[in-house]
């Protein structure tokens, strides 16, 4: 299954690209509108991109009134990414959006590097959301966690249905002449090819810790089918595409085709059969 990483595609400006995914994941919604971070919000750096968008979004009420009905018209499965400053914030958005049958799942953005971190622990937020919604809840975790597997088991116990691994990594890029930060907010979220081993490790450790019992969406620097297959072998049940979408609108179909071929070439009839292959000691 191929998804987009939240915030890397707008299905309303590019519906053809959204429809080429198995599931569309909408940009993070918070209880109140957020205007985002100051310009500049983007800078290229070694092996990747630095962004500092700051969860700009219209707030849950405006989202439900103006955007959600248009997403429903797309006629495809979609998830909503949920954000907030505390557990009550997350729960409020989950409760409001959870009323809509059209929303297949909620992804809890527990890890945005571009806003001040939620004070509450990940498990507490998940528990608050579980109390108000029956929808599948995916906990999107940060690559900064010292023990991502421990947090993963904690959020599963608190009611998460699955994991999304990982969000971007905090990074900094300086102007070549002024030596000041290129981004308006200073530091930003680092994405791109350099994230692949980071995401791979998080998926590997969380699959092991959860014994493959929950779905895992692997995210981080995937640009081709082999890289997607690596995440599946480490334990992902689905793969999300991030910054590759900015430059390649055909990426979902291309990566899907390459993934099928790469799996077949290694004796897996379907890519899903390769899930967890990295954990078999006798593999190969």
């Amino acid at each position, binding site marked *: 299954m191929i998804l987009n990483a939240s*915030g*890397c*595609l*707008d299905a*309303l*400006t*590019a*519906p*053809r*690209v959204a*429809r080429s995914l198995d599931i569309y994941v909408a*940009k993070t919604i918070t209880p109140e509108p957020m*205007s*985002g971070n100051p*310009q*500049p*919000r*983007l*800078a*290229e750096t070694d*092996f*990747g*991109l630095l*962004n500092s*968008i700051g969860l*700009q979004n219209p707030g849950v009420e405006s989202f439900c009134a103006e955007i959600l009905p248009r997403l429903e018209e797309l006629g495809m499965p979609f998830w909503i990414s949920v954000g907030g400053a505390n557990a009550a914030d997350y729960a409020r958005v989950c409760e409001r959006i959870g009323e809509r049958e059209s929303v297949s799942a909620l992804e809890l953005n527990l890890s945005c590097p571009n806003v001040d971190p939620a004070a509450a622990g990940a498990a507490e937020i998940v528990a608050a959301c579980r109390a108000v919604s029956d929808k599948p809840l995916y906990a999107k975790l940060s690559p900064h966690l010292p023990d991502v597997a421990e947090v993963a088991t904690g959020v599963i116990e608190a009611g998460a249905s699955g994991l999304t691994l990982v969000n971007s990594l905090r990074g900094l890029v300086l102007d*070549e002449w002024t030596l000041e930060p290129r981004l308006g907010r200073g530091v930003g979220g680092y994405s*791109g090819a350099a994230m692949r081993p980071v995401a791979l490790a998080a998926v590997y450790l969380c699959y092991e810790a959860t014994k493959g019992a929950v779905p895992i969406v692997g995210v981080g620097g995937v640009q081709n089918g082999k890289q997607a297959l690596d995440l599946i072998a480490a334990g992902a049940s689905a793969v999300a595409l991030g*910054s590759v*979408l*900015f*430059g390649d*609108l055909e990426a979902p179909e291309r990566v899907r085709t390459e993934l099928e071929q790469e799996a077949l070439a290694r004796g897996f009839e379907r890519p899903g059969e390769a899930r967890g292959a990295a954990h078999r000691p006798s593999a190969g």
Partner: protein
Amino acid sequence: MASPRREQRRVGGSERIGLYTLLRLERGGLEAGLPGQFFMLDVPGHIMPRPFSICLAEKDELAFLINPVGPATRVLCELERGQKIGLFGPLGNGFRTDVKRPLLVGGGIGVAPFPYAAQVMGNPPVVLGFRTARQAEAAQLVPKAEVCIEPQLVTELIPGVPMDVLACGPEPMLHAVHALVPDAQLAWEAPMACGFGACYGCVVELDGKSRRLCVEGPVLNGRPPALPLIDDEEEEAEA
């Protein structure tokens, strides 16, 4: 409005015009779009494409005016004839060119969309401001342009009579033009990763409203946004 397409195109030539470089690319079947619209140009060795407004649109080529301000723009300025690069466009919303009393106002590299605009609009009056004489050499691209160099500001060249202003330039200049001519069409600039509304990198705030320049601009107060941008009709048209 023309549907954006992603194509690989050969460099037809590249020439220095003062501090800037005019990069000419073979046009093939690409639509030029409207003056003020832009293309995302892939940069060899770089991850993020960069946005450039259409400077000249001839039958066989599209040209982009590039200011070598950083590593990626320097790569584009050094491309050689015959090299291939990817481009994606035309994107965004262009200028309304069917105005009665046109005046084109450009500042620095903001001259970029006006050679094409002047061509489409039948050479209307143009005023251009630059920091240095070397930058001002770019004025040769626009017929009959009135030019000033700092400390004189381009806003001083705007006549005190009602005009339909189309402006492009640095943010302080756009704010100054907006203050003088509130209904001026303003072409803005910001870094963007995608060009089609996905990344929210290019958001600017004007009159208290946040706007994604790639889909609501780059010309604000120009043509109304046409959404969706990349839709099923395009797929059918391409098939």
